[in-house]
C-alpha cells in the first residue's frame, strides 16, 4: 500500500513545499475527496501539484502552517487509532478518518452559523482547506472542465431556460 502510493506519484522535482510523505498524503486525501469514477479524479488532474503551488506561493505562513500541521495530525490520529501512518491504512480506514474530519468541519460551521447572522465556513481548518483546494484544483483543471463538467469556453449561444439534458451533463 505504502509502496503503491509512492510509485504513482508524479515527478517530485516540481514540488517545492510538500515532502514525499506529505505529497503522498495530499495525493491520497484529494483522490478520496474527488475519486476516479467514470471520469478521472483528483490524482489524474494533478491536484497535488496545485496544492503545492498554493502552499508555496499563495498561502501566508500561518495558513501554510495550519495545513502542514493538519497533515501531521492526521498521521497522529491514525497512529493512535490503528498503529500506522495514514497512507499505510486501508482505504476504508482512510475514508473513516476523513469522515471524522469532515464532520468536525460541518459542526464548526454549524456553531458559527448559530452564533452570528452570516454563514461563515471555518476557513482555517485543515480539512476545510484541503477539500476546498481539491475542488478548485480539480474543477479548474482541463480534466475537470472538459471531462467532468462538459463546459465550453465559447458556448456561442444563449437561452434563458431550457430542459436540463441529463445525458449532456453526465
Amino acid at each position, binding site marked *: 500500500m505504502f509502496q503503491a502510493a509512492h510509485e504513482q506519484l508524479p515527478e517530485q522535482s516540481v514540488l517545492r513545499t510538500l515532502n514525499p510523505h506529505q505529497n503522498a498524503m495530499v495525493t491520497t486525501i484529494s483522490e478520496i475527496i474527488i475519486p476516479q469514477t467514470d471520469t478521472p479524479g483528483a490524482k489524474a488532474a494533478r491536484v497535488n501539484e496545485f496544492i503545492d503551488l498554493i502552499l508555496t506561493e499563495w498561502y501566508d505562513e500561518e495558513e501554510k502552517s495550519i495545513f502542514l500541521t493538519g497533515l501531521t495530525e492526521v498521521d497522529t490520529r491514525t497512529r493512535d487509532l490503528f498503529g500506522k501512518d495514514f497512507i499505510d491504512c486501508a482505504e476504508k480506514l482512510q475514508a473513516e478518518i476523513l469522515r471524522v474530519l469532515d464532520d468536525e468541519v460541518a459542526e464548526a460551521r454549524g456553531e458559527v452559523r448559530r452564533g452570528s447572522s452570516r454563514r461563515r465556513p471555518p476557513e482555517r481548518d485543515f480539512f476545510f482547506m484541503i477539500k476546498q483546494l481539491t475542488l*478548485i484544483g480539480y474543477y479548474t483543471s482541463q480534466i475537470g*472542465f472538459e471531462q467532468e463538467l462538459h463546459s465550453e469556453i465559447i458556448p456561442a449561444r444563449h437561452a434563458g431556460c431550457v430542459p436540463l439534458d441529463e445525458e449532456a451533463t453526465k
Partner: protein
Amino acid sequence: MATNTYDAIVVGSGITGGWAAKELGEKGLQTLVLEAGRPIDPDQDYAEHVPEWEVRFRGMSDRKKVQENQPVQETCTGMDEWNSKFFVNDKQNPYTTEPGKPFLWIRGRQVGGRSIIWGRQSYRWSDLDFEANQREGLGVDWPIRYQDIAPWYDHVEDFIGVSGQREGLPQLPDGHFLPPMELNCAEVVVRDAVAKYFPGERLMTIGRTAILTQPHNGRAACHYCGPCARGCITRSYFSSLNSTLPAALRTGKVTVRPHSVVHSLIFDAKKRKITGVRIIDGQTRDTIEFRAKIVFLCASALESARILLNSSTTEFPNGLANSSGELGRNIMDHCMGGGARGRIPGNEDHISLGNRPNGIYVPRFRNVKQKHPLFLRGYGFQGSAARTKWERGTEMRGFGAEFKHTISRPGPWIMTLGGFGECLPNHENFIELDKTKLDAWGIPVLRISCVWRENERALLKDMSITAAEMLSAAGARDIEPYIEDNAPGLTIHEMGTARMGRDPKTSVLNAHNQAHDANNLFITDGACMTSSSCVNPSLTYMALTARACDYAVSQMKRGEI
C-alpha cells in the same frame, strides 16, 4: 513647435475620450488623444478565452503580488487573475484619505481606460433625475433637461449598440434597443411575482447593456463566453478600444499618444483660453507641451479635476477654471450594498445556456409616484439568478464518488438583488491636492474626503427590505437580506467634481460642458455631473460628450471659440 500643434486635444481614451476623439475627428479636427497608460493590443492583451488551467493560480490571482501592488484595486470584484493588468498599480498611483473616511478609487490607465473593464449597463436618465436638485433645493439645478440630451442618447445607442427591453416607463426612458437577452427560469418566476404583487409600482426587466445581440456596425454578436472585462476579441461589447477609437482612427485625423501623463493645462490669462497641455512622458520622463484650439478633459471625474487643481495660476490660485470654488467639490458615487438573496424553488430540471454577461434590472420605484417619508430619491436593483455550481461543495458535508457526482451537477437556483442608490450632492464631499505626496511621475496626488450620509444609509436599509419583499413574493426560501458597508468609490461611478450649472458663481461648466472661465475647455467625463441619479452613468457621459463636441465645433466654425 508645429508638430505639437493640433486643432483639439482630448485627455483620456476611455468611455468619453474615445467618443470625443471620434466625434471631433469625424468633424475634421486634427485631434490628439493623450493617454497616460500604455497601448493595448487586443490580439495580445485580451484574455477572455484563456482557460482557468492556463492561468497560474486558476483564477485565485497572485494573492501576494496583488496585496503588494494593488491592494485598492483588489477590492473591486471585477478584477481577476486575467484582467488585473487593466487596473492601475496602487504604488505608482497613490492618493490619501482622512482617518475614518475610506475611499476606494478603482482605475484603469491604458488606451481604452476603464471602458475595457466597465459593467456595460446602459440606462437613460429622465427628467425625474434632471429636475431633482431644483425640486428639492439641493446642490444646483441641471442646466439641461431630458429633451436636450435625448437625441444624443439616440446617437450614442445607434453607434455602440445597446440591447434591452422597452418598458414604457417615464422614470427610465426606452432607447434604441437591439433585441433583449433572455431572463432565465428563476428570474422569470421573480419577474412574474413582482408584476403580480407590485402592479404599477415595481417591475423587473432584463438589463440594458452595451453588448451586441446581433451584428451591428461591423462588430459581431456576442458569443456568450461570459467574462467581458477580460477583453472581447469579437468586439461584441462596447469599449472605446473596440469601437470609438477604431472609428476615430479611420478618420485619419486622430492621433493617440500613449504614455502621456498630463501634468497641467496652460492658460493664457489675456486670451482667456487654454493654449496647451503639459505632459510628462511616462517612459522618458520628459516634459512636453502640446498646443490646441480646444481641449476636452475626459480623464475621469477625479483625474480631470486633479489636472485643473494642478494647473493653478495667480488668477486661479485654487485650481484652473475654479472661480466658483466648486472644482473638486460635490463628489458622488452610487451607494451599493443593500439587497437580498434567496433560493427560488422549482425549475430544478431546467437550466440556462451560455454565459449571459448581463443581469436583471428593477427600475427605481421610490419617490416616483409618491413621496417616501424617510429619504429623498431612490435606487434601482441589479442582480441575477443562477444555479450554484461545484463551488458549493466546499460548504457541503461529504466527499467521494457520490459527492463528486452531486456537485458536478447544477445546484439550487439562487437569486440576488443588489441596489444602486442615488447619492446626494454635498459640498463637503471633496478632493484637493495633497502636495506632501507625489505619484510615480512627480505629480501631487489627491486627498479625497467623501462619506456616505444619512440619505444614502436610509436608501441602503430600504434596499434590503424591498429586495427581500420581492423575493418573498416569488416564494423564495432562505432569504438573506444584507447591508454591506462599502466605502464610497467602490461602485466606480464617482462623479460631480466640476459640475454643470446655470450660474458661473456656483458651477464650473455650462449647459454644454464648457468651462465658464475658459470657453475652449470642455469637461465631459463624470466630473460634469450635477446630480447622480441612481442609474449607471456611462451612457449619459457618452451622450454629453457627443453633444459637447457638436457644440464646440459649431462654436469654432462661428468664430466664437
